């Protein structure tokens, strides 16, 4: 199962969440504390929006199929960049010769000209059987962007096809509606094809100014006979967040600083610190949406009844 983090708020040195905390994202690739039966060795990707960069509305991107723990280029870059929004992902796949490890399968996905990016933690069981039933719901100009073999990239194409303008800049509410609509379409197709086994869909979407995440699973608690992923899938796929002024290290630990109104939010598959006391779990079957405002950020959770 993959591991993902998303951040929106005060500029944050990329190195902090990737390397510096004691359960950083890079550490989670080879030593996750939750779902420890599964390592995330199939590649790394990050997108970040830096207000001081050229064309600040366009994110920088870094994706490699190698292990981030052994990547000196990433470590050095991460020490120089302070994005105000980022989404980073370490990819986990089943240990099988059938899996495709390639640049085209690396998250976060962002098609050319698109303003929305997406990373996914989870998997749609029997995706091959349902893939082409998704096509009528994906706009042709979006479908042209699909290059890889993952369910995640198709989910991305499906979500942005639900926007009024797939290449426009949606607010958090419109993005959340598009996600909910995409999940309903997937639910309907699964029902029609008789696909009814557990399929977690924890999504992380951002535009650089708005952030939407889901903690959701189709048919949670139902597994195919002899399922090799059973032990991994039995717990509901986790999602945590912490919120406050700025994410800072102090006294050997990392936490959000106090703030009257929230100015930063950090969301991750599992807390970035061994001490989880400053983190809250996102409720199962729900969505968390955050957006930048003049005074900080607005955060809202809503139930997902897809």
């Amino acid at each position, binding site marked *: 199962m993959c591991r993902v983090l998303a951040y929106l708020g005060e500029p944050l040195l990329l190195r902090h969440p990737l390397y510096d905390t004691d359960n950083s994202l890079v550490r989670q690739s080879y030593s996750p504390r939750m779902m420890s039966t599964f390592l995330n060795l199939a590649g790394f990707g990050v997108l970040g929006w830096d207000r001081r960069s050229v064309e600040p509305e366009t994110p920088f991107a870094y994706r490699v199929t190698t292990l981030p723990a052994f990547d000196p280029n990433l470590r050095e870059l991460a020490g120089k960049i302070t994005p105000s929004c980022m989404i980073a992902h370490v990819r986990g796949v089943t240990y099988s010769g059938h899996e495709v490890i390639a640049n085209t399968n690396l998250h976060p996905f962002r098609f050319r000209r698109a303003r929305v990016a997406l990373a996914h933690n989870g998997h749609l069981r029997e995706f091959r059987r349902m893939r082409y039933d998704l096509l009528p719901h994906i706009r042709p100009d979006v479908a042209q962007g699909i290059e890889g073999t993952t369910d995640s990239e198709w989910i991305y194409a499906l979500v942005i096809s639900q926007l009024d303008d797939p290449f426009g800049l949606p607010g958090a509410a419109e993005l959340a509606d598009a996600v909910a609509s995409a999940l309903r379409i997937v639910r309907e197709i699964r029902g029609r094809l008789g696909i009814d086994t557990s399929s977690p869909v924890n999504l992380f979407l951002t535009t650089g100014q708005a952030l939407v995440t889901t903690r959701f699973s189709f048919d949670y608690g*139902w597994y195919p006979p002899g399922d090799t992923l059973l032990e991994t899938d039995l717990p509901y796929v986790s999602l945590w967040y912490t919120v406050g002024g700025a994410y800072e290290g102090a006294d050997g630990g990392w936490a959000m600083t106090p703030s009257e109104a929230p100015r930063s939010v950090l969301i991750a598959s599992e807390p970035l610190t061994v*001490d989880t006391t400053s983190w*809250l779990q996102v409720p199962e079957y729900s969505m968390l949406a955050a957006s930048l405002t003049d005074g900080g950020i607005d955060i809202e959770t809503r139930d997902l009844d897809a």
Partner: protein
Amino acid sequence: MLDGPVAGTPDAASLKRELGRIPLLAGMSEAQLDELEWAVRGRDMPAGEVLWRQGQEAEGMVFVSEGAVSLSMSLPGRRAVEVATARAGEVLGEVALIDGGLRSLTATATGQTRLLTVSRSDFTALVSRRHPTAFALKRRLAEIACARIRRQISALGDALGEEAGGGPRREAPEPFADLEDRRAPDSRYVRRLANFRAFDSLALWGILTAGRYAFCPAGSTLIAEGTRSPACCLVINGAVEKVVVRGARRIRVGLAGPGHALAYESLIDGGPSTTTAITRERALLLLLPQAAFARLFGDETAGSHVFLDVILRDLTAALRQATRPQAHLAASR
């Protein structure tokens, strides 16, 4: 943080008197108290001393003999909120010993406080035996956890305001009556569920054949808040959510997935259900009727030994889950 100075090691008679005042141990025989006595040590704490901090490994559990202990929860943004006060007679810290997790709250003495402490290793030694005292202690811990869940959920309901009731999606007039019978699942699947891995084949068979299997579609109310459940449900497939409904507001206080149990609180303490249980996904349930539950919960067989562990772990998971909405409510203020 149980390794602080041991202030008092009272003589055996006074220690036994102190133990006798702890509700967890009330009604235990002289012989059973003798069994516990060797594991208990006294400790005096001044006001303000921290017994343990949230997120720490658990080193033991305590009985509050005199005084009071404040329990507080950390929140994002380096904030904290007091959620309860434990007073004389109450037990603290057993949850993390039962489920092996970390401390979920910070415990601080609010005044001069006397505690009776039991270390993790002594607690494990006490409850892992197949001895009448171990069975009695586990049943008591389950009753205490039930009472704590009731208090916690009642406080949540109060925070939401309005009267109980509101809109479960479909009322169930008679719990479990109209559920469709199904065949037993493949025991190889059941054995892989975390809560059942500890069962030996015979004990697992004893449980899997003690009730009936029933299928329930998604969105069905299994138990309504305020009613008494006639059976304990073990979720084999799917998921059941436990919600508190007040007017138009609805808070989920737990989600029971495969291997988890629900609706057993009434069977333990006779009280009504504090939550409404609704199938979030279609679900295959093992329904253990009251008589079967009473036998598994009350006997002193190998099967009961493991079944009590399952119920205790489930109760501690329910306690931890029930703190989540509390934290969200506090964090949003």
